[in-house]
């Protein structure tokens, strides 16, 4: 059998992780030029567990187009890059259990006709979002009458809302909260979340059981187990609130 | 000034009045004055680089000139003298209208390589004057016949010998039925037989009343065909007069030495 990537990582004494640098607050470059964000810091926690030091890590930054090829080709050991577990994807990628549950929020201008999530399903609504499978499906499901438009990045979708190109914007809770936090006098988040919870998980090349087992176990220990404390602190730092309490994976 | 000449009198067709032109710092035409009467055939002779081609090009306004004025049938060429003394370029339309009446045959033929021989002849009359293709074709074929190239009408210029291209260029200018014809060394690529033929053509054109200005190095040709001859050297018009006067009794020293060389060459 082939050598497991896990051995390679241990021998190399460093992990290579595919992350994003343009998805605040998950992965971005901060004012001091440091690559950081919830997912990037979580990747460092993974490195700490795998090779004993959060700084023994090499961050491989790709756009959305390149994140899956990056792990499939072996250029990166695994990826942490807002990848939602999605049945079609699971055929070709291996996912660990999720490291975060995220919800989808809708942002509208203050004083908009759209007062509730139910108002979205209307011919006059232009609903903007990123061009991801989950967003597209949600738009179809919850606002079939509305016109849906899709952008490459959240910032472009936000710009569309600002410039009036769209009348509502659905986004990952992290991005939506950050945006409204900065533009609170002009925009509001509608109450409630659009659809169910998403599970973002670590992804890797399929067929490497030892590595998958190790990653999955480490994620479990952070999210549900012995290292929950570190995870909770990280979560609080980036999202300003307590994480959901420890729970078995199949809870939702 | 020359544009005050009333066009009703039997005026000279072309009046070149103290024309001057420079390429950058180099003055290539210096105060050239010359008139060509309607029906005249004027030969321009002179050493290489003396400005003959440049003068011919100015008459067609292919070259602008900075000083003096050229008029054709009382109409100034290319340039308008404003009452306040300033010079203004005429409109493209005016310039094109003038050129359509002035035929020119170039030293380098300048045939259109993407058109065949017949198209080279018909393109201008059809597109400029909007004449119907039928009569223009007739005329073009007759001209090709006359220069001995009727069988080459569907060849492209690159498939013709030098002399053949030369003759096509002459025919092309004639298809426009110009009233003034400018010829720049049109016989240089022609053999003696053809020189004779072209000479016939030119003589018959002169009989038709077409005025011509001919730059040439062949003195025999100049002498035979022209009603007057002008000699240029170093951008100046040195002497002009009847062929007899120029060839037999040259006044100017420069012309005399030029003629001497010529006779020395021709004695052979």
């Amino acid at each position, binding site marked *: 059998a082939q050598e497991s990537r896990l051995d390679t990582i241990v021998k190399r004494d460093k992990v290579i992780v595919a992350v994003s640098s343009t998805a605040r607050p998950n992965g971005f470059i901060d004012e001091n030029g440091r690559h950081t964000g919830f997912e990037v810091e979580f990747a460092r926690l993974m490195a700490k567990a795998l090779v004993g030091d959060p700084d023994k890590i090499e961050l491989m930054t790709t756009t959305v187009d*390149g994140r899956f090829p990056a792990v499939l080709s072996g250029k990166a050991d695994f990826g942490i890059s807002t990848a939602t577990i999605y049945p079609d994807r699971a055929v070709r990628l291996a996912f660990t259990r999720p490291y975060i549950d995220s919800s989808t929020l809708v942002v509208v201008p203050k004083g908009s006709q759209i007062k509730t999530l139910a108002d979205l399903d209307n011919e006059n609504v232009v609903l903007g979002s990123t061009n991801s499978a989950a967003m597209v499906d949600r738009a179809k499901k919850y606002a079939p009458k509305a016109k849906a438009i899709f952008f490459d990045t959240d910032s472009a979708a936000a710009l569309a809302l600002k410039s009036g190109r769209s009348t509502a914007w659905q986004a990952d809770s992290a991005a939506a909260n950050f945006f409204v936090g900065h533009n609170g006098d002009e925009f509001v988040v509608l109450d409630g979340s659009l659809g169910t919870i998403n599970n973002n998980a670590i992804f890797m090349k399929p067929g490497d059981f030892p590595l998958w087992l190790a990653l999955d176990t480490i994620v479990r220990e952070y999210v549900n187990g012995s290292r929950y404390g570190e995870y909770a602190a990280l979560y609080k730092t980036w999202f300003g609130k307590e994480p959901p309490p420890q729970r078995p994976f199949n809870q939702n | 000034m020359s544009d005050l000449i009333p066009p009703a009198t039997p005026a000279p067709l072309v009046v070149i009045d103290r024309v001057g032109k420079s390429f950058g710092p180099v003055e290539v035409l210096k105060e050239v004055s010359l008139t060509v009467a309607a029906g005249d055939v004027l030969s321009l002779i002179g050493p290489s680089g003396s400005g003959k081609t440049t003068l011919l090009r100015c008459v067609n306004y292919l070259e602008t000139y900075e000083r003096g004025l050229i008029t054709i049938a009382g109409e100034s060429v290319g340039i308008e003298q404003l009452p306040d003394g300033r010079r203004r370029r005429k409109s493209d339309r005016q310039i094109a209208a003038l050129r359509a009446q002035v035929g020119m045959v170039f030293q380098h033929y300048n045939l259109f390589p993407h058109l065949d021989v017949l198209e080279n002849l018909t393109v201008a009359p059809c597109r400029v004057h909007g004449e119907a293709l039928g009569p223009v074709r007739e005329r073009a074929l007759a001209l090709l016949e006359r220069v001995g190239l009727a069988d080459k009408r569907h060849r492209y210029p690159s498939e013709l010998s030098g002399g053949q291209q030369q003759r096509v260029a002459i025919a092309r200018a004639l298809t426009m039925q110009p009233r003034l014809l400018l010829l720049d060394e049109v016989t240089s690529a022609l053999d003696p037989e053809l020189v004779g033929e072209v000479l016939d053509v030119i003589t018959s054109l002169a009989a038709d009343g077409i005025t011509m200005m001919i730059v040439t190095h062949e003195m025999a040709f100049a002498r035979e065909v022209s009603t007057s001859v002008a000699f240029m050297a170093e951008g100046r018009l040195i002497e002009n007069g009847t062929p007899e006067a120029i060839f037999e009794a040259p006044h100017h020293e420069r012309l005399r030495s030029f003629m001497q060389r010529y006779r020395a060459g021709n004695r052979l």
Partner: protein
Amino acid sequence: MLTSSALYLAQGALVTIGLSLGIIAVATVAGMLLALLRLYGWRPLGLLAAAYGLVARGVPLLVLLIGSYFSLPYLGLDMPLWLVVVLIGGLYFAAYAAEVFRAALAAVPRTQWDAGRALGMRRFQLFTIVILPQARRLSLPPFLNVALVAVKNTSLVSAIGGWELVAAGREIGERTMEILPAYLAVAAFYFVICFSISQIGRHVEKKMRYV
């Protein structure tokens, strides 16, 4: 903060310049070879060059970059990212450059070949001394087009983990969720780079204005 952003963009611009120069160099050499094959080469090779031109130009560069960078390891070729980008980008734009050179070389009149041959020049000498210098003038403006497109296409390297000017701009934009000013800043940097290149081109073109 503004200055630190500008510095950050400047670093990205340096990467962009480096990659661009590499790509343009490869594209020029390979493009000339392709053009020569098409015009004067052995016929089957010429057709092969034409087919290469059609395919290479027809496929998006992004796809080529992702396809090659992530597949090369399978072939046992673990080249550094910049090398892959320079090679793949260079070969890709070579197909465009080849078209430019082909048109320019063909426009030099046959009589120039005759004149060179009559002086006893062999093909290669004739080509380098007589034909190429004249073709250069005609090819310059369209070649500049290709070069500028190449410069701007270096932004695609962020898909395979590379980082350059646009990536830097996007990172700044996403940090602040203000993408438009960031992009305008990026555009300003591009303008400086591209304008310098096109000014060099224009200068050379002017010097060659002898006809």
